[in-house]
């Protein structure tokens, strides 16, 4: 990069008239400078940042639809198998297939991504730097980088919570269950309620019905903040 400072000033509209004219002229005659400026604009400008967010959002939408399609694809295969099994006298496969689809719908309905900003604001000032950095990556939907940061503070419980949430966003539900387990087993901390709730959703999402019911029931019995939601979701699961 030849003139990073000049790029920055140009984007911010801070170049003086003479410099501005010279800069524009350089862009016309110097192809490598123009190429560098294009990459700079695509990387380091407020508009570029918003476009990167847009790309992330589109990819998240596609991933969620593709996962659904893959699951439905498998369910079709399961349905054929179940049909054969039914012919042989049992309908268990088909019932399980229907359950899995509705569990995913319930998960989508109840999983609302946690904002990092509230917890950061309400946390003590003693938060470790990698956790703060991880939170920033989490807020930017850069979940891989967020997890990498949280790993640098392996004993930090807030880091574990958001690491689990990042894993959920990436579809690694078993990894997330493990992270939430650490928080729940530690017991004496502010994040147990959240960890139990999100872990239950992971069990639901992965089709572990009895485990999910057991966990949601515990939340419902404990009178915590997720009690009402847990009661509602239990009603839905038990309808199946």
């Amino acid at each position: 990069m030849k003139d990073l400072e000049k790029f920055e000033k140009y984007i911010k509209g801070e170049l003086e008239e003479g410099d501005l004219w010279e800069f524009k002229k350089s862009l016309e005659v110097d192809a490598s400078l123009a190429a560098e400026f294009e990459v700079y604009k695509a990387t380091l400008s407020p508009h570029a940042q918003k476009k990167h967010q847009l790309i992330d959002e589109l990819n998240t939408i596609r991933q969620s639809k593709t996962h659904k399609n893959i699951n439905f694809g498998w369910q079709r295969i399961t349905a054929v198998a179940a049909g054969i099994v039914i012919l042989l006298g049992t309908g268990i496969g088909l019932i399980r297939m229907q359950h899995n689809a509705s569990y995913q719908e319930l998960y989508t309905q109840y999983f609302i991504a946690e904002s990092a900003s509230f917890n950061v604001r309400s946390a003590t000032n003693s938060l470790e730097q990698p956790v703060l950095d991880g939170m920033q990556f989490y807020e930017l939907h850069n979940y891989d980088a967020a997890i990498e940061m949280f790993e640098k503070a392996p004993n930090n419980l807030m880091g574990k919570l958001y690491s689990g949430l990042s894993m959920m966003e990436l579809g690694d539900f078993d990894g997330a269950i493990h992270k939430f387990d650490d928080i729940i087993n530690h017991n004496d901390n502010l994040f147990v309620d959240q960890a139990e709730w999100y872990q239950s959703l992971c069990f639901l999402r992965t089709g572990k019905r009895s485990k999910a019911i057991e966990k949601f029931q515990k939340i419902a019995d404990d009178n915590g903040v997720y009690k009402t939601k847990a009661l509602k979701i239990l009603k839905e699961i038990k309808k199946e």
Partner: protein
Amino acid sequence: MGERDNIIRSAEILEGIKNHDREILNFVYETYFNQLADFIVKRRGTESDAWDVFQDAIGVVYDYVHKKDFSLDVPFQAFFFTVARQLWFQRFRKSQKETNFTNQTMEHIPYEDVETLRDYMRQQVITRLTHQYMKKLSPNCIKLIKFSNMELETGLIAKKLNYLSNQAVYNQRRKCLRKLLSWIENDPEYQNLTDYERP
């Protein structure tokens, strides 16, 4: 749905894209992605090509609606597919060394906007490549870029990332961007971009 309804619906979609409205983005994906994928797959492309083109077309629409004097007199669907087809033809023509495609696919676009849209298309492809290659950068570079985009003061970035001076931040950022540029410059898609350049 009448033409007027169509235009009103189009305005809603464009506003939604402009504001990253998840519901509208979902709607656009569900309504148009399969159509676009069909179009591309029937023309010797893959679903992965279709996904790149879909993202690029949305990115171009996004830039277009952020234009100061933006106005759109054609339904969203026509505009979107015009841009998407153009992006696909450019990509396909280059990859297949095919020269029979013409620019007739830009017919729905107001004449004065065609050149602007070509700039947006070029910039969008670079943005997508940047997004793709940024993931390969070291966590430190990613942090540096993210913090810079959050418009933190250079001094504060230096403090947060333990650099000794503002100049060290500039130097490191320059190194990160140079790395990114070298990857992008070697990408065949970037090398194919000459078609979007002004005559």
